């Protein structure tokens, strides 16, 4: 708590990010812990990840974020300890 407050009153939150399918291959990681400013949304996390891993989201398509096992909109505010999953866009046939 003391540590947090030392950042000029700006609290931080820590989330566990999980990668799947093409994101796992591109990031070369299955998961990654990230520190974000309090109030950070899914969109902020996505922005942060595209800085950390250039090309991670290349090729377009829809990206969906799930927090603690539930799909959330991009303006969803993250909380400390959240497990955030990046759900790659999908395309192609049907079976």
């Amino acid at each position: 708590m003391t540590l947090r407050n030392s950042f000029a009153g700006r609290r931080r939150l820590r989330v566990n990010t999980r990668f799947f399918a093409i994101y796992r291959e591109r990031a070369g990681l299955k998961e990654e812990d990230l520190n974000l400013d309090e109030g950070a949304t899914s969109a902020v996390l996505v922005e942060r990840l595209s800085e950390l891993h250039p090309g991670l989201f290349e090729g377009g398509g829809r990206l969906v974020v799930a927090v603690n096992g539930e799909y959330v909109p991009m303006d969803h505010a993250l909380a400390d300890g959240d497990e955030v999953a990046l759900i790659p866009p999908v395309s192609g046939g049907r079976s």
Partner: protein
Amino acid sequence: MIKITEQPIDAAEFIAAVNKKQNGGLAVFLGTVRDFTGPTRLAYMEYDAYKEMAEKKMALIVDEARLRWDNPDVAVAHRVGRLELTEPSVIIAVGTPHRAQAFEACRYIIDRIKEEVPIWKKEVDEHGHGEWVEGCVPSVREPVSH
């Protein structure tokens, strides 16, 4: 029985799980790896899943089917990892007293799984080139393009 598994799917196990005395109809769906999707001839398929969430979502879908169709017996599994041609990637077995409900609930569950459960698949062709394509598409409340 609802699970994401790395083991081969044995249909008999799932049929047995829903073959209760009170059931007169069992409907089973198996999704299998097929050789062509579009122009690409497949060598094999690789499946990835967000296991914890996938199992949770599948359990919710099954619960909804149980409410809708008067509590059918249901057994569901989706396999992950490398699958060869003709191997089942997913199985849905449903047992009900009468056949109409078994068909309807089985169809409902596989359709919902394909729409909502975080599972992806990578088609690998004869040259070893792989591409992540269709999996189970989550329903997006707020799609974002990148």
